């Protein structure tokens, strides 16, 4: 290979790539309503997700009121309680977290971070949002049909889901299944965009291994979603047939109210397999974007390159792959073959390896970093702690012998709320504090932010730590009230009331956060285009907030990876990805990029 110095490389003329023609909006409606601009779609996605998320939040208050103070509120009867938990679960997992991470963050940051003007299929992208919106509206409509929304639990297990003893077994469940099917169709349209934009839309010099980990996280999560959501789709379609046409895919021969139904021979277990074949990857659909984003937050706010970038990418891929072969650890108590349990326990524990690797790398990135305790950093640190806590209880539950007694207790509720509820939410908050200046041009209010952080972080622990203990005592999940038992002491009720009070307080701090979002839009401090002095491309746009087409006249050319922080000898403590080597004084780098193979 010829010896090539950096200087030669600097003077290579940019390749003349003809840019694809960008769609331009002609009216207010096509610019802000039926918009094909990924940034507008991202905001539409996010606002819709937050709106339905608020419904989920209120539902959690209502069910906590019942658990903390049983029989005190006359408007919460058993039927309503089941409807609250069902809708809370489904809304938070699918319609809030999935939609916000992929539809919201994915749409906003993929084009900006890879250096593209927009998604590759803008029209399909627009359809994706509108179908998502319809899915949300169908879901909301189920609150208003006769019998109300379904109360089958968010896992929607047959046969009880469509039997008349379950609340919402007429209109509610049908609307739920239709809404899920719509969501999946809409998501697939968006998902195609995210994947293909990462593969095809990268600007010159942006190799796959120069992508920020945020993009990697969203990219892998989207691939998981594209392969896993069909399982839920299949389950939903087959259950709709069982409900509406009387087929027996899932429905066994069963007696309802003393009457033999016409169903026969179906397999409820089959639905559980389908559901969890979607359900477990879903955990990582939510977690992987959080992993990616938090890596970037830590690196930026500790002014240090991410430790083990390649390992971080490979770990994301490994976790993604493994997440497809662990689903039955949700079904240890379903009566499956013990050898199955052994297999799935093994794969489940193996997932801990790449996950732990990521945690080590986050900690090692912090080690000897120049840690700025900004709000995004506080949330990122809180995420690491919370994720480790929730992850470790996952190791408990991954073992069959430990899971069997703990299954269907509050321990499980505490575990999954820590690991896939609180932890990803902390990342969402952190990233909103991080990117709000780029999206709106103003900083969020620091005081309100600090209040929000400390109440949310400490409050979440006050809610979910004691819940583990309740689970150990044997307090079952999903019960409307437990009444008197031999094994649960009376003090458990006091603890439950405490949890409820904390829930209300943490919920209130979210209202403060939302107020901050609106207030800062008008009164926030004007933001610098790159207030955190970050390297990635979204901070290098000529306009803040980024205009239509993102990058002005010419697309940026990328010369380096996304983590050049505190490079020895460099003038500033960060080097943007699009800064040519010739403009960087002081070199730490020795090896120039391969000039050419062969």
């Amino acid at each position: 290979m010829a010896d090539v110095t950096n200087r030669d490389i600097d003077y290579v003329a940019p390749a003349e790539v003809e840019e694809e023609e960008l769609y331009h909006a002609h009216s207010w409606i096509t610019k802000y309503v039926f918009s094909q601009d990924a940034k507008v779609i991202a905001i539409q996605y996010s606002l819709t997700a937050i709106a339905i998320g608020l419904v989920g939040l209120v539902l959690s208050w209502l069910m906590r009121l019942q658990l903390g103070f049983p029989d005190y509120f006359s408007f919460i009867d058993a039927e309503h309680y089941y409807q609250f938990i069902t809708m809370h679960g489904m809304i938070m997992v699918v319609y809030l977290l999935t939609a916000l991470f992929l539809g919201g963050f994915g749409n906003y940051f993929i084009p900006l971070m890879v250096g593209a003007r927009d998604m590759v299929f803008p029209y399909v992208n627009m359809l994706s949002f509108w179908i998502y919106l319809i899915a949300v509206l169908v879901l909301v409509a189920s609150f208003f049909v006769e019998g109300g929304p379904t109360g089958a639990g968010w896992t929607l297990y047959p046969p009880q889901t469509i039997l008349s003893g379950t609340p919402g077994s007429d209109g509610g469940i049908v609307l739920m299944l239709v809404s899920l099917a719509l969501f999946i169709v809409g998501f697939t349209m968006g998902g195609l965009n995210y994947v293909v934009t990462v593969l095809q839309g990268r600007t010159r010099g942006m190799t796959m291994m120069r992508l920020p980990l945020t993009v990697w996280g969203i990219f892998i999560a989207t691939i998981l979603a594209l392969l896993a959501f069909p399982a839920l789709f299949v389950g939903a379609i087959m259950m709709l047939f069982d409900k509406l046409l009387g087929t027996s895919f899932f429905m066994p021969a069963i007696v309802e109210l003393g009457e033999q139904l016409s169903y026969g021979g179906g397999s409820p277990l089959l639905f559980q397999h389908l559901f969890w074949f979607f359900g477990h990857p879903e955990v990582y659909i939510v977690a992987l974007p959080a992993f990616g984003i938090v890596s970037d937050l830590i690196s930026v706010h500790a002014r240090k390159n991410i430790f083990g970038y390649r390992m971080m990418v490979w770990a994301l891929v490994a976790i993604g792959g493994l997440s497809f072969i662990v689903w039955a650890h949700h079904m240890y108590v379903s009566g499956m073959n013990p050898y199955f349990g052994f297999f799935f326990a093994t794969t489940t524990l193996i997932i801990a390896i790449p996950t732990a690797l990521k945690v080590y790398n986050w900690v090692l990135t912090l080690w000897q970093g120049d840690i700025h305790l900004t709000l995004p950093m506080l949330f990122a640190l809180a995420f690491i702690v919370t994720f480790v806590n929730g992850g470790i209880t996952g190791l408990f539950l991954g073992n069959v012998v430990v899971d069997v007694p703990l299954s269907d207790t509050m321990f499980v509720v505490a575990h999954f709320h820590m690991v896939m509820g609180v932890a990803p939410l902390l990342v969402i908050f952190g990233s909103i504090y991080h990117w709000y200046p780029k999206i709106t041009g103003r900083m969020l209010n620091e005081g309100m932010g600090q209040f929000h952080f400390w109440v949310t972080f400490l409050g979440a622990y006050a809610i979910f730590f004691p819940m583990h203990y309740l689970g150990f005592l044997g307090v079952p999940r999903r019960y409307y009230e437990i009444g008197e038992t031999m094994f649960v002491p009376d003090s458990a009720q006091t603890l439950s009331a405490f949890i409820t009070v904390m829930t209300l307080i943490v919920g209130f701090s979210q209202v403060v956060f939302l107020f901050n979002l609106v207030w800062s839009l008008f009164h926030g401090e004007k933001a610098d285009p790159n207030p955190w002095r970050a390297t990635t491309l979204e901070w290098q746009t000529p306009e803040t907030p980024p205009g239509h087409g993102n990058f002005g006249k010419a697309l940026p050319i990328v010369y380096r990876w996304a983590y050049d922080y505190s490079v020895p000898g460099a003038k500033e403590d960060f080097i943007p990805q699009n800064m040519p080597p010739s403009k960087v004084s002081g070199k730490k780098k020795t090896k120039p990029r391969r000039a050419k193979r062969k």
Partner: protein
Amino acid sequence: MGLFQQLTEKSWIEEGVEADPRERAAPAHANGKVGLWVFLGTISSLFMLFLSANYVRMGYPDWKPMSEHGLLWFNTGLLVVSSLAMQWAVTAARRRKLNGVRNGLALGGIFAFAFLAGQLLVWRDLVDQGHYITTNPANAFYYVLTALHGLHLSGGLVAWARTFARAWRDHNVFDVRLSVELCAIYWHYLLGVWIVLFAVLLIT
């Protein structure tokens, strides 16, 4: 660059851009094609999950396999011809023969419609013979799977209609070449899915 090389790049010590301006000057494949392949991945997951559900459900004692309908062989033939005609259109587009493209597309579309009509006929026949969707899980799977396949083909026909209209209006083969190729890939794929579904029906 190969996948392995891409994923093992030491991006933290390699800076600058490629010295060869031709390298990664434009993506090697059209966006539409990559998008279609990713989409096919999703549909494959969908059909595979349906088939594995079918396989699990088969193991239960109430499963009574359906007798295959003679017309299905004929329908399969229609779909094969449709797929071949699409391939003809692709070849013609590569040779820049507009007439060939138009004829291939027309034939491909007609035979695809014929296939759908044939499938509906089989449905009606089965219903007439008393094979209702609720009679047996085997029937239910048959109806659901054929409906799903038919819906995907109908979606393809929407794309086909747009391509066909453009091939009729445009006089430049180059403009429609990609669309024709995408249609053909989708057609071959759905033919493959149908053959698998038909085989599953035959051997159970």
